[in-house]
């Protein structure tokens, strides 16, 4: 009897172990690209272009210990070097003898023979230059007519960061406010055409925002709204509302009817119920939608580009980062650092709202 219990415990332990190891492996697999990006963001352009980020870990590498000038040896005959006889083509491939390797670096006309040995190495040349370039702006050297070189400091990230915040927070709060009222109405108020209106809202979910860009811009130009933050707030609010209404409706309609009914009997108005009961109870759903919407707006490029434009003092972070790559993509290595800097705020938002998130993920999925 007792041995049975013991083996059951053992089985459970083994089972747990398998699950945990599997999970750990999956997590590792999932985060490897991000880790690689993070490591790359601390390496300089040449290092990124020539060696992989994983070379920061200890590994064995062929290291040249001696270089031999071949001089005028006949390239077409086998060559005697370091007690080895090999043809040019063999040497180009590398000839191994013992723990040494001979390699011809270069072509027949130029080049040297290098004697190499394997050694343990790590590439630990890290630099903060990428972050510096991204945060404080790139420096451009512009030659002046008199031949002198003027250094122009490119714009730093602070302005774009503030602009992104100025766009994201209202563009998150506005749709939540409207959607919460709308969802309550759809869920708990009776009025003619309720179903039809709700179906219309849900149907809007499938409308891609790209097709609305030109008509909206046309209206904004007419209203003289274009290029303002208000324009982009309204645009994001509009594009975010269908999902917000749908998500919040599903959540609110699962709240127990009894609570609302007792409130009604006590003489509460719809507004009181909404503010005192529904809003506090819907907090997880509100928070999870806030995260969705915030991330979406924070990472948005297209809507901001069309409605605010790309001038230096109004551009948002995504535009600034897109411009980091330079006129022809020659500074692509700065994107690594740019990505991590733009990630900071969304991570803060996510972790501070995270405790609502798990509950909110289930929002509307289980109906009572």
């Amino acid at each position, binding site marked *: 009897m007792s041995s049975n219990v013991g083996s059951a415990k053992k089985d459970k332990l083994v089972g747990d172990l398998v699950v945990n190891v599997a999970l750990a492996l999956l997590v590792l697999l999932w985060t490897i690209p991000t880790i690689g990006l993070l490591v790359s963001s601390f390496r300089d352009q040449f290092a990124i272009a020539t060696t992989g980020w994983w070379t920061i870990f200890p590994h064995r590498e062929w290291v040249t210990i001696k270089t031999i000038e071949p001089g005028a040896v006949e390239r077409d005959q086998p060559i005697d070097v370091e007690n080895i006889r090999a043809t040019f083509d063999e040497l180009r491939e590398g000839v191994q003898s013992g723990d040494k390797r001979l390699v011809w670096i270069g*072509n027949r006309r130029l080049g040297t023979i290098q004697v190499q040995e394997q050694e343990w190495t790590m590439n630990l040349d890290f630099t903060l230059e990428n972050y510096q370039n991204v945060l404080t702006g*790139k420096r451009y050297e512009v*030659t002046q007519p008199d031949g002198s070189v003027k250094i122009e400091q490119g714009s730093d990230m602070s302005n774009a960061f503030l602009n992104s915040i*100025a766009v994201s927070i209202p563009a998150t709060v506005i749709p939540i406010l409207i959607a919460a009222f709308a969802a309550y109405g759809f869920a708990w108020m009776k009025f003619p055409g309720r179903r039809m209106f709700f179906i219309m809202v849900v149907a809007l979910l499938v409308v891609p925002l790209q097709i609305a860009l030109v008509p909206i811009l046309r209206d904004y130009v007419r209203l*003289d709204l274009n290029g303002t*933050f208000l324009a982009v707030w309204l645009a994001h609010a509009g594009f975010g509302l269908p999902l917000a209404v749908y998500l919040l409706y599903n959540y609110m309609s699962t709240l127990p009817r009894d609570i609302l009914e007792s409130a009604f009997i006590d003489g509460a108005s719809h507004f009181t119920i909404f503010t005192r009961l529904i809003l506090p109870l819907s907090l997880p759903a509100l928070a999870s939608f806030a995260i969705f919407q915030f991330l979406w707006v924070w990472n948005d490029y297209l809507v901001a580009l069309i409605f605010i434009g790309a001038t230096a003092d109004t551009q948002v972070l995504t535009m600034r980062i897109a411009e980091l790559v330079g006129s*022809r993509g*020659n500074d692509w290595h700065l994107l690594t650092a740019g990505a991590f800097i733009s990630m900071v705020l969304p991570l803060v938002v996510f972790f501070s709202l995270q405790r609502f998130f798990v509950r909110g993920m289930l929002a509307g999925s289980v109906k009572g």
Partner: protein
Amino acid sequence: MKKNLWLLLAMLTAVIVVISACAPAPPAEEPAAEEAPAEEAAAEEPAAEEAPAEEAAAEEPAAEEPAAEEEAMASTGEGGYLDRALAGEFAGTTVTMMGPFTDEDEVKFNNAIADFEEKTGIDIQYTGTKEFEATISVRVDAGDAPDIVDFPQPGLAANFASTGDIVDVLSFMDVDTLRERYDDSWLDMAVVNGPNGPMMAGVWHRFNGKSLVWYPKDDFDAAGYEVPETWDDMLELTQMIADDGDTAWCVGIESGAATGWPATDWMEEVMLRTTSLENYDAWVTGDLPFSSPEVKNAAEQIGNIWFNDEYVLGGRAGIVSTFFGDAPNGMFEDPPRCWLHKQGNFITSFFPAGAEAGVDYDFFYLPPIDEQYGKPFLVAGDLMAAFSDSDETKAVMEFFSTGESVKGWLQAGGALSPHLDAQLDWYGDDVERGIAQLVQEATAFRFDGSDLMPGEVGAGSFWKGMTDWVSGSADLDTALQEIDASWPSNN
């Protein structure tokens, strides 16, 4: 706790609304500025009011449109919009511009026009964006076009010209003046079909030379190789380098969504060297199909080099997966792993930081294949097109037709000037001066064909077709037929 959260959110929102209303936003901010403190609004207003007033004042003299036109026609210089601007007539006005210059190019562009802005008092507000092609269509469709747009692809400008959005350059500058400032080839390249027949879509501001082959000069000389004068010499050199155990060519055509464009440049180069200019022009307008023997022959010439794994670093398979900017890296390894790289003059911005022109690298003209077609040169450039017919816009347009408008950029490096009055000694960079000289010596030059073709082909199926062919996922005939099939039917 929950209350606090809401309070915090509400306060954040309120703060941001106020901050953004006070921020130095564009003049169109007014509706959102309602909540701004009174003095802020007041501070903003004078500037906003001034502009319309000035504009109105500036418009008055031009009220008799025909008279102004006659004036411009009658004289090349005095009375032109540029002179009126230099006299300070348009001081205080603003000209908005949009284009693809970002980052370093934007800094250099602004640097080049700073002097003009100071002299005339016209404020040129340039907005550069990486997503220029997508943005400009939306802005124009919505009736929110900037005053001047900088098109790197004349094909795109032609689309807007045909819908009547672009102001004909000839309506405010006469042909003789333009002839004094540009070679006829440049002027021809700016002529497109407008709503009422042919019109000049814009003026050229800067260009890039393409017909160049780069090589690592010091190693090249040390190895005893010689710069080839003919295509056959170049193939011989390629074979010689292969015999010496190296691959001659660095080729990479990967460029994200635009993968394949370097291959289209090669096609254009070989087309110019194996067939007549008339055939090239017919090809660009769609009259000579891709499946014609001329185009196929050009592709085969390229295939002779590219598809020989002894000739290309990384072999055929490496071409499609190598980023075009990384492709020349092999030349700068010690010793070089590849020795020749064909690319426009802008590629120097991808060369390693320490590389020195004339020592570590140099260039030669991609040699002619068939003598009877001379020494053609392939170029690409920026066409400035006016979307507004205000006087200050015309003045800025006229300014762009002078070498002065790009002089600062030539000194800073990164541009070539198409203007006849630009001097070779303006170039701050020997390489660029050399290229400018090559262009002057060229027997003919033509614009990058893919930039002239309709967007569906020139920025779509041509790239894709070449990529499919090079990667081996389609044979040449299939690839060329697919490009033909994608040509818009209205042509």
